[in-house]
């Protein structure tokens, strides 16, 4: 039976929206009346969002190419637009940007309806941000969604270009073609970050390595947009050189995207090692890796929940 979309306010005032696989944690900052207005707009937009998406699912699960049909729904269009730049370079479907696009759509509904200083829509770790100049968010970055603990933090200021954060890797709900535990990308929008994180996480790999067990995606999920493509099921312990080699492959891809202006920064994580690409002033991993900063456990304003 179709369960209706769920809306509720968490005990600390944040808004929680849930419908099928979409799980959003939303927080707006500003005048009380504006926050209320923003949350109402978010709830209203959310009401039909999943149904709209699902009406075009077959198209959204199809490889994006230069000749792809244009979807009709506004979220679906965000998805198609986000993956289009990757279509000539790699196998990608609009589904690679679904989480970020949903977050973006809801955030836009909120900022159109209300005047906010800052706001975030966190869709299971793929986050759309609204920041006025001078405002900032602090983000904790985790490497393993199935374990507690953060390996890095990013501080995103309203003066930067970053308005989206996304994490992809093999531990999340979706499948990965690569072996990264987590790749976190900061980009100008959540949908762009989402698509790029998928691509960079796929690039962290050691093709043909015996320690990596792969299986066709559709053996586990009949409707996976990856079809028979081999997705990573398990990665045994790699030695330090192998970890570095796999991360270097991903890092080159991230650096290419960064130089092309398609992302702002990325942190790539595999078996305890982290490679960072881009402005360290925005994305900082090194200090947290060695020791928790003094205010570490109580600081996170946002937390990544799972890779996408």
């Amino acid at each position, binding site marked *: 039976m179709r369960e209706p979309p769920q809306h509720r306010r968490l005990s600390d005032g944040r808004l929680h929206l849930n419908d099928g696989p979409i799980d959003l944690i939303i927080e707006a900052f500003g005048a009380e009346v504006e926050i209320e207005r923003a949350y109402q707009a978010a709830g209203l937009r959310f009401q039909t969002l999943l149904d709209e998406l699902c009406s075009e699912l077959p198209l959204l699960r199809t490889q994006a190419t230069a000749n792809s049909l244009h979807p009709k729904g506004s979220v679906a269009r965000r998805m198609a637009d986000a993956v289009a730049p990757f279509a000539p370079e790699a196998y990608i479907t609009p589904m690679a940007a679904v989480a970020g696009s949903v977050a973006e759509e809801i955030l836009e509904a909120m900022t159109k309806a209300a005047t906010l200083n800052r706001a975030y829509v966190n869709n299971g770790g793929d986050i759309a941000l609204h920041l006025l100049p001078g405002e900032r968010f602090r983000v904790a970055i985790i490497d393993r969604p199935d374990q507690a603990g953060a390996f890095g933090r990013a501080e995103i200021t309203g003066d930067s270009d970053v308005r989206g954060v996304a994490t992809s890797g093999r531990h999340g709900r979706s499948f990965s073609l690569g072996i990264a535990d987590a790749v976190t990308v900061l980009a100008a929008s959540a949908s762009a970050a989402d698509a790029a994180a998928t691509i960079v996480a796929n690039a962290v790999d050691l093709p043909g390595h015996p320690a990596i067990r792969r299986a066709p995606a559709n053996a586990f999920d009949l409707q996976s947009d990856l079809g028979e493509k081999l997705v990573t099921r398990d990665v045994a312990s790699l030695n330090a050189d192998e970890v570095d080699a796999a991360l270097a492959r991903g890092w080159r891809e991230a650096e290419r995207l960064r130089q092309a202006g398609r992302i702002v920064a990325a942190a790539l994580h595999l078996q305890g090692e982290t490679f960072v690409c881009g402005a360290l002033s925005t994305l900082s991993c090194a200090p947290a890796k060695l020791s928790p900063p003094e205010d570490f*456990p*109580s600081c996170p304003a946002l937390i990544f929940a799972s890779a996408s």
Partner: protein
Amino acid sequence: MLEVADRIDDKIRCDACPVNCFIKPGMTGACDRYANHAGELVRIDPHVLLERTVSEGGKIVPFLDRPREWNGDIVNGPSPVITAIGAGTTYPDYKPAPFIVSSKIDGVDMVTVVTEGIYSYCGVKVKIDTDRHLGAECAVVRAQGEPVGHVTTGEYGSQMLSLGGVNHLTHGGKKEGRVTCETLLDLCNGKAVELTVDGGVSVVVQAGRAPIINGHAEERMRVGCGSATIGMFAKQWYGKVDEVVVVDDHITGVLSEHQAGKVLGARDTGVKIKGRRSTPGRYFHVAEPGSGWGGAAITDPLDILGPFNPKEAWPGLTMLMVSTTGEQHAYYELDDQLRPIKTRLPENLVESVERIRENCEPALCSVLFMGGAGGSLRAGVTENPVRLTRSVRQALTTVTAGGAPVTVWPGGGITFMVDVTLLPENAFGYVPTPALVAPIEFTMRLDDYAALGGHVDYIRPVEEIIGERANRLGDGTLR
């Protein structure tokens, strides 16, 4: 709209949302909430904690009060169980603990100081119920190839491992520390961890589950040592068989020589056991330790016997050899040359072998987390940390971990152990120091708290905490 079948083969089409996933048995849909459980579409997220407790016969604490996974609220439900899980902490802990909560219990004002500790020196003690030889005492125990601890003493049919601690967490290599932290975290959160013992076995350890040793799940814990087994079953054997040898790597028992047999009037049989005789009918070191009969490295029990003494033995003498779990047994008759010939176990002895098996308890792994409330953690509780220690010593302050009772070691400091299965699921976390993060609560009378220099200015009534449902976590999954 296309008509879609509800099933393809054994897959179910979920109609909880318009994604309409086809879900294979044992898998979940895109939402991770609906699953195909043996052909039934089931919702899996709401009752995880409760079900686990109920299925294990435990006491249910009102921890979840709504159909969602725990989202990080510190206090839940109408009768709050305040745990420190997700309370957060500061490190070093120079600030007052995140929550200092007052409430009335039986009319007495009580204070609970709720915090999470960062345990850089912590470890776990693992008890593995098995007769099998896991490795020599002091042998290094590894996870993912990294040393994470060692084999310690064998005690009462269990092998003890000591894992973690400062030497692996912080004094070893970087990878060693990370792997140790991950191993401790998984064990404490009730996950299965594969460990290998240098010069020994591979063992999969999971709190509350049977150990899996070299791929074999251990079923039973020995009923007792070989000698004890003789004592327990001598009466049931006497008169039905001339000799019984209970093969045990620790103490092998021999009915005819054992005090229990002597009392019944058992006749000498001339049986010759290899190894060192301790007292009559009790033999040490009959073979090398291993994973065969009774935890010895033998698959043929006759390997522990020498030739029968012709002055005492006689042709036709019957002998039962059995392991301490009853899982292995063999029955022999001596031929004319006094050689034991294996024959079928007579009906009237089957029951006694079964009874050994029946009296064995299920073999389990148990995991105790061991941590200490160091100086800095205590500073989060009181301005005068040593007074907290004294207060715990004097039993004025009760220590709990995630609401679970702990055992506080005598001696210096507040070093405690807690059965990890008593804590709510995923109560443990980590920081990359590396160190484990675990909840700890100190509960005491309000006046005692003031007397020991507590941060009384920070006390908040429990109603206030419930009222604002102070959330310290992100979206409830992680800190």
